[in-house]
């Protein structure tokens, strides 16, 4: 665990000195701010529900950009061999990288708390749904980042990693529609598998253990697979 945290800290430092992280964060916040202001203007409702709902689509593209460098760059530079031969487990490397990106994302969400803060000044928002909404954003983001870590483990090229990430996420996002074609009973399975089917409740103000577990499962599965992929370097 100590190793994991060391790797995470190293990644966070790398993020905060690179301009890319700031550009991505600024773009994310600019889009969110625009959604927020426009939705407030048209709906006149003190809620974050619709803003967060719209941001999920943006997140789909932001997450792979945040993670594209993580393992791909190490493989291109050959530094991954150093990491893998160091006295750390492969899973500690993967988890550390993931936690690094998750921390950056959490910081972005943290800055975006400015929007509910504005709501609390000009109106009287219900804070329950805001809390659950942000929890949902964190879990969804975590799932997307972990999928990004997985695709980053597959290639040495950052751009390929990002594109693969978007493709994988979009497929998992829309897999629920397959259910409409196959019909019951498979439709339920496909719908359950879809990333997009599990955040509505968070945004409306309801936390359900099964949605929490779903996102944690995606994170677990993606990181596990990424570890297996890294492992192949030992015997390939």
């Amino acid at each position: 665990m100590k190793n994991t945290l060391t790797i995470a800290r190293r990644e966070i430092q790398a993020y905060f000195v690179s301009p890319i992280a700031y550009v991505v964060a600024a773009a994310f916040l600019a889009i969110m701010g625009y959604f927020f202001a426009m939705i407030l203007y048209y709906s006149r409702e003190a809620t974050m529900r619709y803003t967060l709902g719209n941001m999920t689509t943006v997140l789909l593209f932001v997450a792979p950009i945040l993670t594209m460098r993580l393992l791909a760059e190490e493989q291109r530079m050959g530094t991954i061999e150093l990491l893998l031969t160091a006295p750390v487990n492969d899973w500690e490397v993967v988890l550390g990288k993931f936690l690094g990106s998750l921390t950056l994302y959490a910081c972005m969400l943290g800055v975006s708390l400015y929007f509910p803060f504005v709501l609390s000044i000009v109106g009287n928002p219900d804070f329950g749904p805001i809390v659950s909404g942000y929890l949902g954003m964190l879990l969804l983001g975590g799932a997307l980042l972990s999928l990004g870590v997985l695709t980053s483990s597959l290639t040495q090229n950052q751009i390929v990693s990002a594109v693969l990430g978007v493709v994988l996420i979009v497929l998992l996002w829309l897999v629920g529609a397959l259910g409409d074609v196959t019909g019951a009973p498979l439709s339920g399975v496909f719908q359950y598998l879809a990333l997009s089917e599990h955040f509505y409740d968070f945004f409306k103000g309801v936390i359900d253990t099964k949605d929490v577990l779903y996102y944690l499962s995606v994170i677990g599965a993606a990181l596990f697979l990424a570890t297996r992929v890294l492992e192949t370097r030992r015997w390939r």
Partner: protein
Amino acid sequence: MMRERLSRWSNTLAYAGLFAIAAGLVAALFMGKMGWVPGAILAVGAVLLVAAALGRPAEVRRALTGRRARYGSNAVAMSLILLAILALVNFLANRHHARWDLTSAKQYSLSSQTIQILKDLKEPIKITAFFSPADSAQATLKDLLAEYTYHTDKLSVEFVDPDQKPAVARQYGITSYGTIVFERGARRQDTFGTDEQSITSAILKVSRDEQKGIYFLTGHKERDPEGYADDGFSAIKALLEKNNYKVGTLNLAMTSTIPSDTAALVVAGPQTAYAEDERQTLATYLNGGGKLMVLLDPASGVDLNSVLETYGVRFRNDLVVDIYSSFFGDPLTPLTARYPYSMITKDMTGLTSFFPYARSIERLGTAPEGATITDLVTTSDQSWGETNLTQRQVQKDAADTPGPLTLVAQVQKGKTRLVLVGDSDFAANNVLNSVRGAFGNADLFVNAINWLAEEESLIAIGPKTGDVRTVFLTPSQMRLILYSSALVLPAMVLFVGLLVWWRRR
């Protein structure tokens, strides 16, 4: 010799084999099933692959038993095991899960009554909601029904856009947006309300086994619930059946026994007078807590006032004239949207209804002990009740009753319930079929029957106030929010990034 040739062509054979297998799978995908054509292509591919493998036996053996194969299959097996565990955990968690409603109004928490009713459901119920996607009520209903389905697996929900799937809407006989149909087997129950009270009541009604009977009296040229002609009541019968009632007829001249499953009797526009015995049967039925709906047209020569006066109401012998608010300018067809509050009219705000050739209803001096009389539909202040039905020129005379006049009234006395309507044309086939859902006539009839059958308060769930937190902003506040959110905040982040980059340079 053979082997040498095979080994030389091994690569080509392998590629051809893989290509054939891919083609076979694509063919199967397009045909939607595994027919013999894709099957044959797949078989060819398999043969080619085997041939390729035979050409290089040593390599194949190494690939199957070598170090890479061992590690590789190990990694695949571990991944499959993990995925299987996750699938199992998620499957279990999906069946046993907990939910927390964080909204301060507990908007998404169903009442304990509803939860109990859902737990007691024995048979599957199918809910089909006909909404236009632009309707905001659809989103609200979706949220609510999602909560219902979390408590039971007996409910299945489908939203249908009647413009996208007109055939489905026609099949269900849907005439207006916002209709929600509940089905259990052949039983059906329609509702329009999108609140918990309406949904739970509809579930209760459709899951009930016995059907309540609505009996139309016959024998005096009343409106016929089987009649498909313009003046028939078959449209009303269909509506009542959609609301899970059994509709029948009853001739009081043949029997004085009211069927035991009777929820309400309907006297629908008789044209010949009832005999003394029949009126006596009605009076006895009412006295014992009966439910009766009386639709009586002007100048029909039928007098039921002797029965009704016990309850403080009677039909006036007049013809309602309303030149200010009438259907397409016909002063003898009053059109009104005036519904004093009652259980029958509470959901009819904004709906107009009209009554071709109607008479008005009169309250007698003081209401009898224990009786509450409520006007349900009234005409405009400028209307009047014309008492001289033979005069040529229609005008307001001193003998006429000044408006507003009561067209529909309800009476409740103990368990006895009465609804009086001074018209029977308003619910006839030609009216209901020509105006469809645009007017409130059908709703009025069905709501009245629901009230008579004591279906209005199957379950009492306090309405949840839609917890909308409105924000009032001045234009300058709005601009400030827009600029600070979409420009200043991201710019500040960029600025910090620039500082960091500068310092590292």
